[in-house]
């Protein structure tokens, strides 16, 4: 069966939710108020369906999705942990959800109190001196942070033009540096999966604005040489940017500020368990050391004599990176998560995430190659080159995992590992879930030899199977109108 579209249920004249005109004031004649050439003549093109159609369609679509609520979702680097329902409930309270961004500060003191407390908590967890909650996502936080580094250096009269990025970095790091007008230089990894310190020392120069680093890195490995790395970059006059994508591994154990980072972003949808929503919204607050505080996006939240208020004083701020104050609904959830855990809870989160990853790695390493023989943090990367030699690529194994009832790990990332399969179990998965996954991975490894077709042709039981993605990109059909035109 084709995957259905709401447009296919449309019938001319069918109606869903209606809004009758007001009966107690004069009717409104568009033609009398708007110049003829500005009055829309073309149909809006929205589906014409009944409420029942809508409910059934999106109920059905939802069941074609796999979420954390469906099962184990070990998508490396994405921290797909359990999303507490009470946090969603809280974000839906009218006092949070139905508040207009232009309301006077005096009418939102509860919300401002929450945001301030969240800022303070994030400062403590990251070891930074000041935080802005404005960035909407991790990449957005990166942009904010890199622009602050740029502004800071500019104010010091330094026109440094290079950002260093390890070869294992997320794609957002180089993309961000480039978006911020920097040149990107890629730092190689060493044989232990960390930054090659010697190479780094060679690369830094008077053009080095900074280094963007995820720690633990995308291989799930802690950068053992972080203090040396920080020294090298700082000595060269650059700053250290911490990509918080992997902060779930370290809470209460080590803080970016204590490792020497100058700017940090945290992905609240990862570490603070706000739901990923099929792709977002996330939230990417940035924290900075005192010297960078003046560059934070405005407005800043401050305590005044009559309560908390937004300070629109621009000063040396890099400006705004989005409208208003940030993804407040996400921030409410993150605050709820913070308060649910407290000091010991967050530490236990990280410890258990790391325990789960190491346990899983240990069991899987009997069958799968681990490119680096080290303790990992909250995730790890397998290299399926031996399996590929036996006839099954990482993608095949990933697709076959679907048939065992799990969401596949990340594949082909990071780029420094051939046939990479990147697994992040998170702390909210139980031992028996991990054991079931281990069993599945063993079974698939057996199938590669014993029943290769079942692996190559996987998945078998999904609503649709493998797509011809190349063809889809060659002749992109991006809208219903184009699709109709095609048929």
């Amino acid at each position, binding site marked *: 069966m084709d995957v259905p579209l709401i447009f296919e249920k449309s019938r001319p004249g069918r109606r869903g939710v209606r809004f009758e005109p007001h009966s107690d004031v004069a009717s409104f004649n568009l033609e009398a108020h708007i110049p003829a050439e500005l009055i829309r003549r073309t149909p809006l093109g929205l589906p014409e369906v009944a409420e029942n159609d809508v409910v059934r369609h999106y109920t059905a679509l939802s069941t074609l999705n796999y979420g954390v609520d469906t099962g184990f979702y070990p998508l490396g680097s994405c921290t797909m942990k359990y999303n507490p329902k009470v946090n969603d409930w809280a974000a839906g309270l009218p006092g949070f959800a139905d508040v207009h961004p232009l309301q006077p500060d005096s009418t939102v003191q509860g919300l401002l109190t929450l945001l301030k407390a969240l800022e303070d908590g994030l400062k403590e967890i990251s070891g930074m001196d000041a935080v802005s909650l404005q960035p909407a996502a991790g990449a957005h936080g990166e942009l904010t942070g890199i622009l602050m580094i740029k502004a800071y250096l500019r104010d010091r009269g330094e026109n440094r033009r290079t950002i260093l990025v390890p070869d294992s970095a997320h794609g957002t790091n180089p993309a961000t540096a480039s978006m911020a007008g920097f040149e990107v230089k890629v730092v190689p990894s060493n044989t232990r999966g960390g930054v090659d310190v010697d190479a780094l020392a060679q690369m830094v120069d008077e053009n080095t604005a900074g280094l963007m680093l995820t720690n633990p890195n995308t291989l799930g490995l802690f950068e053992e040489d972080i203090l040396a790395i920080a020294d090298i970059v700082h000595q060269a006059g650059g700053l250290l940017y911490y990509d918080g994508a992997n902060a779930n591994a370290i809470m209460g154990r080590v803080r970016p500020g204590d490792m020497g980072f100058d700017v940090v972003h945290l992905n609240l949808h990862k570490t603070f368990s706000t739901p990923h929503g099929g792709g977002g919204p996330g939230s990417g607050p940035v924290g900075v050391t005192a010297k960078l505080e003046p560059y934070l996006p405005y407005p800043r939240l401050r305590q005044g004599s009559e309560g908390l208020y937004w300070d629109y004083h621009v000063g040396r701020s890099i400006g705004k990176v989005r409208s208003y104050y940030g993804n407040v609904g996400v921030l409410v959830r993150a605050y709820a998560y913070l308060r649910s855990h407290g000091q010991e809870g967050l530490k236990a989160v990280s410890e258990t995430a790391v325990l789960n990853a190491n*346990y899983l790695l240990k069991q899987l390493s009997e069958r799968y190659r681990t490119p680096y023989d080290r303790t990992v943090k909250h995730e790890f990367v397998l290299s399926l080159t031996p399996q590929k030699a036996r006839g099954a690529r990482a993608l095949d194994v990933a697709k076959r995992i679907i048939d065992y009832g799990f969401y596949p790990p990340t594949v082909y990332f990071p780029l420094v590992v051939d046939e990479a399969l990147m697994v992040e179990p998170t702390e909210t998965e139980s031992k028996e879930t991990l054991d079931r996954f281990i069993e599945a991975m063993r079974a698939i490894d057996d199938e590669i030899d014993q029943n290769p077709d079942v692996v190559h042709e996987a998945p078998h039981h999904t609503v649709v199977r493998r797509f011809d993605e190349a063809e889809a990109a060659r002749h992109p059909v991006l809208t219903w109108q184009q699709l109709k035109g095609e048929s």
Partner: protein
Amino acid sequence: MRYIPHTPDEYQAMLDALNISSVDELFEDIPEQARLKRPLDLPKALSEMELSQHLSRLAGENLNVNEVPSFLGGGYYDRYIPAAVGALASRGEFVTSYTPYQAELSQGTLAAIFEFQSMIQSLTGTYAAQASMYDGASAVGEAALLALGQGRGRTEVAALKGLHPDSLQVVKTYVQARGAKLVVADSLEDLEAQVGPQTAAVLIQYPDMLGQVTLAPRAIERAHQVGALAVAACDPVALALLTPPGEMGADIVVGEGQPLGNHLTYGGPTFGYFAVQKPFVRKIPGRLVGVAKDVEGRRGFVLTLQAREQHIRREKATSNICSNHSLNALMATIYMALVGSSGLREVALRSAQMAHYLEERLRSLGLERAPSPSAPFLYEFAIHVPGDVDDLNRHLLDKKILGGFHLGRFDQSWRGLWQLAVSERRTKADCDRLVEEVAQWMSR
């Protein structure tokens, strides 16, 4: 702790399997010197019940727009959200999934994004739309970058002042990052004077911050005259009544999506939309979903044209955007499906009907619209207030009305201008009460 399922026995069994006695051993790769040797200085953990009481209290300390009539607008509107939107968008399979990397397990999200792209394309009169941006302001920013990326040595972006000040600020941040410059024109004439071969894009909001709708065609025309791209930022509900910018030739149409079935949430998360004409499809930032066939010939949906994106193209990507605002776009998709073409028109018309009633009543108090008393508007307009607008708003707040926004808080040149938005939720009684209190305040 809270959401960790491990029993002590299981925890121990896992330590045993790793042949370690404590998780401390798993953290020995952290340099001793950097380790945190004290507990985090955070409040103690709350039980779910305590948390819910604490958050209820904090929520209760905010005034919400169900308690008092609100006339605030500026891109975010207190619109009615049908109950089915929340009931459907809150389903766990939508909420707890991520970017649909594995299409076979993500057809729900993918099909909904395809529908969203189709609806936005159709509303805006363009060729295609992508999966969502963070918000309207960053969508304008990305549009400016797209235009600058067209090369040809154009290093300026010009905007008409009626663009939302937050959008202007974000554009400024974004284009300056690229070493380019933002110029802001006060009027069409000023715009025409300021643009030239250096201009990569002309940005215009339609309707703009003062509610004006008539400037778009000439601004678009002028952009094209100097070889710049025309970018229009639109309240999508207004496009139910107005000629869409895509039909006027705008190259990029973006906007803040909140009015489509999203809660106000103090400004976020909502979503931005981003639609383009055909030549720019492969330059579009963010996710794109396209039709595909599976091995059995079934139609489905996949992420497509990914070569534009950061996870493939890295420093050469069209944007660094990764997480977008998919769930908010889903709410908008469900909203648009529920109300349909007729319903969306009714929302806009009903708002306009009451707005014109209000405007007429305010006029009868001797108050005049800015910039001109006769400029056409839909459901948002600006009023010259004779006196201190902030004081008027304080008076209204005392009377349990959230009055309009004082535009002077955004821009000195707008001092004394009061931006009033009227949504379909406002009643005659709400408007009458506002007018009475304005009269009261004027005669104080």
